[in-house]
């Protein structure tokens, strides 16, 4: 925020796509989602993914590597809305107080 007028692109153009990643919204969270892999369909058979699809903050990470799947949250951005927990068909996600 210390840039002078001639050190920033003209007219407010933001030339780095998706640089909002530099702004962490995780601090907004009052509750955090916690994932239990036991009954999770993604972990079981790589299906469902509703938590990933519906997450408004792109904070669910479904990773598939060498035929094994893992699940994690990006707490840097997760605002703790609880949509993932609400939409989980197997109740694998619980919201816990920060």
């Amino acid at each position, binding site marked *: *925020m210390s*840039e*002078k*007028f*001639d050190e*920033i*692109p*003209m*007219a*407010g*153009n*933001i*030339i780095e*796509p998706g640089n909002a990643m530099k702004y962490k919204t995780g601090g907004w969270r009052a509750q955090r989602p916690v994932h239990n892999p036991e009954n999770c369909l993604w972990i079981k058979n790589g299906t469902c993914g509703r938590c990933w699809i519906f997450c408004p903050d792109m904070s669910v990470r479904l990773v598939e590597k060498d035929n094994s799947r893992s699940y994690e949250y990006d707490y840097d951005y997760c605002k703790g809305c609880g949509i993932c927990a609400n939409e989980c068909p197997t109740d694998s996600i619980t919201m816990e107080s920060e």
Partner: protein
Amino acid sequence: MTTVERVPKDKITVEGLTGDAAIAHALKQSDVDVLAAYPITPQTIIVEDFQRFAADGEVHTKVIPVESEHSAMSACVGASAVGARVATASASAGLALMWEILYCAASMRMPIVFTVANRALSAPINIHNDHSDGMGMRDSGFIQLYCQSSQEAYDTTLMAFKLAEDHDVLLPVMVGIDGFIVSHNVERVEMLPDEAVQKFLGVRVPVQPLDPKNPITMGPLALTDYYFEFKEQQDRAMWNVPKAYKRIEAEFKKLTGRSHGMFEEYKTKDADIIILAMSSMGGTAKAVADVLREKGEKIGVVRLKMFRPFPTKEITKAVGGAKAVMIFEKAMSFGAVTSPLALEVKSALYDLEKKPLVVDFVVGLGGRDVPPETFVEGIEKTKKYLEKGKAPMYETLGVRK
């Protein structure tokens, strides 16, 4: 720098054209990519003529017949944002409806050419000429060039693209002609061959366009921490205009032998009283000056073309030596110290130790005729004010009172 040579006479087309038609021809030759416009008197001929060129396949332009002037300027911003050469036209109420987007166009640094047949604002509704619409947009960030003739309108429209698209400028340009007085009067216009115009203008080279391979965000929210810096950029770009304009006009002069300057000076060198006016009033003023000079009165004329940016130093130099500057202007700023043009001139002269008396007359509102007699009346008043050493901040002339 490529060498520019005068276009030979046999390559020049001479036609009798109205101001609107002259602008339409200039737009046609400028190879405009997108023209978005809405009809409004007295500008409509520009769009009608252009649509006829389009209908006959004489232009390669997407014409967007928008549902409002607000959308006209909005479509222009969108088209300009992806790198197209863009133009629109309007007047009066239509220009007023665009107002919000005029600021966006300038702030987003869109080099749009906006031709205007200047017309009074409502109410009462009135289709005739004054400069209320142009003055209403004076702080929008548009460059403003007011023309006196069809020829000048043609020339200026061509140059406007080069000026707007100049990388030191990147600002929209308003090219104004007086509604009906110039827009509908047929005058002799010399037109360049298409190839000469194409060579002169080239193709727009956009800076930071919207491009899927280089995805930028345009028009974000910028608050207390950044907004001001963008205004600083914009203001500096505006003050890059005189230099760019002179360079472009010099090239145009080589091509055509014509130039119009930021303003036109007529017999000002030894003048006691200098009439300062814009657009078509400049012609009348010169005729009045000639007649009065025959009677031994030292009258000169400055016909201002570039209102934004206001050529402060140059105008100060041009009129600073006179005893009085008599301003004739076709706009009012209700409740202001004086009227828009006088505000500029008085501010410009303020730092002079010995300054001319500035006498401001608001004339011609709603198309009220401004005949030579009105100028003479103004001169007589100015002479009286000179004797008293004092003049009113402004007054109206030509109104029944």
